[in-house]
């Protein structure tokens, strides 16, 4: 509790507070613009955080995460286009409601739902994280190895496209992560004689290439696509007590669904929104309203996707396992600031952990206030022609890739991974599992080999230790359940 209060006290000093406001504002704007995403802006900001204090950096990045998840609501409602993937379900009811002449109502419902989802999930984040960290400290290398396996399988299973394409993406990421010096033995692997690869592919060029550059290459192809849009009004944006009364069950249920799905390693706001929307429709008295401007649809989707943000922070700060692709970037931020993610983060760097927790709450409140006041103006930014946005994005990618190691080689790496990410998306291979595989594989390999050293070369504890066995069973079920389900049908 003391650490949390200290974190709040520090957050309300000028510089951290400014970073929080900046992060939320930039996140909302970027989230609102189709073609840009929270992942992109966080990846582009990562190199700039080198020069910041660790707590300030994480407050900024978490605030961007919160802002960008909510910002997607604006374009989903006004342009029939999710600004971020997490807003894809909001499109189904937000835009129809806006077309019926109620854009303010749709936006207002979404903003309030986002806020309440964030608050409920924050309470769970604050309550669950400390005890979970205490349990996680007792995890051995085999438990951590099994957990990383679950994360990889889960994100492969849930990402767009087939399970096998998701797994292929994940293992391509694993392969890329193995280039360079093997941490356990010092042997140089998969460099094929290129000395520049002895240190492996650095984090920022890979992430900027796969997440940002590849998206830019795809956006350029679609640059001429006409976008249907609705003008913004702020009428009826405020939720009344009656509205709360009508939607409180949906709000609470969706927040729990979003938080739980966010906690599951590797999955994020998009899946949370889908699950929550589907559940709300199944429980609705008039399910036919869904897809035609249903208030419950907007509430379910927006509550869950924002709840997933805080849910995903739980495994990140307690176990060092990213809860979503954006959490992978937060993990990268911890690594860049010489912090070791994992259960010991609570013990060794509590100021970092509680800065993240405090930042998540205050950012949620700031998001709510900024969006209520500034949505009409933010909406105008959505219509900035892409031709003006793409060159600066590429230049910032170059800077980000270069700044980490001061090597021009890294900008070529960034371009190479941009092309790889683009080709993967054309082959319907999702990029998310690649990033998870790339980040988790080194942890996974080190833990497995540490476990083998610890247990005299025996793999048996993988299945005899109950937590490790539970994770392996979960991974196996996730892998094989689609086929079992098919056979039953």
């Amino acid at each position: 509790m003391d650490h949390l209060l200290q974190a709040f006290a520090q957050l309300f000093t000028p510089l951290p507070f400014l970073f929080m406001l900046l992060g939320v504002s930039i996140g909302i704007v970027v989230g609102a613009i189709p073609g840009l995403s929270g992942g992109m802006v966080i990846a582009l900001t990562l190199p700039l955080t080198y020069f910041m204090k660790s707590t300030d950096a994480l407050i900024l990045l978490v605030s961007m995460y919160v802002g960008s998840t909510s910002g997607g609501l604006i374009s989903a409602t006004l342009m029939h286009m999710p600004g971020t993937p997490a807003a894809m379900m909001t499109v189904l009811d937000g835009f129809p409601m806006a077309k019926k002449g109620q854009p303010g109502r749709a936006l207002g419902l979404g903003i309030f739902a986002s806020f309440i989802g964030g608050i409920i999930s924050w309470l769970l984040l604050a309550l669950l994280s400390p005890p979970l960290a205490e349990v996680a400290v007792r995890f051995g290398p085999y438990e951590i190895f099994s957990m990383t396996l679950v994360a990889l399988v889960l994100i492969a299973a849930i990402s767009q496209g087939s399970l096998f394409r998701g797994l292929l993406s994940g293992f391509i990421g694993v392969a890329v992560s193995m280039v360079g010096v093997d941490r356990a033995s010092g042997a140089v692997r998969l460099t094929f004689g290129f000395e520049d690869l002895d240190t492996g592919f650095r984090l920022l060029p890979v992430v900027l290439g796969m997440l940002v550059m590849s998206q830019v290459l795809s956006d350029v192809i679609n640059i001429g696509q006409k976008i249907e849009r609705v003008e913004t009004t702020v009428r009826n944006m405020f939720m009344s007590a009656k509205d709360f009364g009508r939607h409180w069950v949906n709000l609470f249920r969706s927040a729990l669904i979003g938080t739980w799905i966010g906690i599951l390693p590797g999955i994020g706001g998009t899946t949370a929104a889908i699950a929550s929307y589907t559940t709300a429709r199944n429980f609705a008295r008039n399910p036919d309203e869904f897809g035609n401007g249903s208030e419950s649809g907007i509430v379910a989707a927006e509550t869950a996707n924002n709840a997933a943000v805080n849910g995903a922070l739980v495994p990140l700060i307690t176990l060092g396992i990213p809860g979503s692709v954006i959490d992978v970037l937060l993990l990268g931020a911890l690594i860049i600031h010489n912090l070791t993610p994992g259960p010991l983060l609570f013990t060794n760097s509590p100021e970092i952990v509680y800065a993240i927790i405090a930042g998540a709450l205050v950012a949620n409140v700031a998001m709510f206030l900024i969006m209520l006041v500034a949505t009409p103006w933010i909406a105008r930014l959505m219509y900035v022609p892409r031709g003006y946005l793409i060159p600066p994005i590429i230049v910032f990618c170059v800077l980000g890739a270069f700044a980490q190691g001061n090597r021009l080689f890294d900008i070529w790496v960034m371009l190479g991974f941009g092309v790889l990410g683009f080709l993967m998306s054309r082959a319907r291979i999702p990029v998310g599992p690649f990033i998870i595989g790339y980040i988790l594989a080194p942890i996974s390999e080190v833990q497995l080999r540490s476990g083998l050293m610890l247990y005299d070369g025996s793999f048996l504890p993988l299945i005899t230790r109950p937590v490790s066995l539970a994770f392996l069973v979960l991974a196996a079920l996730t892998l094989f359940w689609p086929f079992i389900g098919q056979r039953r049908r």
Partner: protein
Amino acid sequence: MLQGRQKVVRDAILCVVIAVAAILMFWSSFALPPPALEPIGPAAFPRWVAILLLGLALIILGSHFLPGKKINSNSEGIDQDSGFIPRYDLLIWLFGLTLLYFLAMQYEVLGFRWATIVYAFALTLVLFDWAVRALVPAALSAIVLGYGVHWIFTRFLFVDLP
């Protein structure tokens, strides 16, 4: 939408590329030292991953030929029925200009500031289909980007740029 045959060709190419990469990975693992402190050593993961990659690529390709429900992605390709024509020409321009931008810095033809200004100006014009109305905004945004970013990184963040 891609036709069935095009999907098979696309996945066949994918399978070949992944197979080549997997074989190279597997082959390079033989040059690694044997295990020392634990039984698997540095070669194990590259070999396992190579086998998994090859297996997954074959499964994806094989799914086109299996009877019954296809194990395939839910959506395929850009929907071309809306009358929208994808701008692959812009993609080629962007890629070409970006290559020139990087080469200019690599071979010290231009420093970061001027390379960025020229690149941003040219790319903005290309993305606006060389429209005359975009000339002035493109020039202004390029100059602000080149000088502004250079100043922030060198004077404020103390990062040496090319």
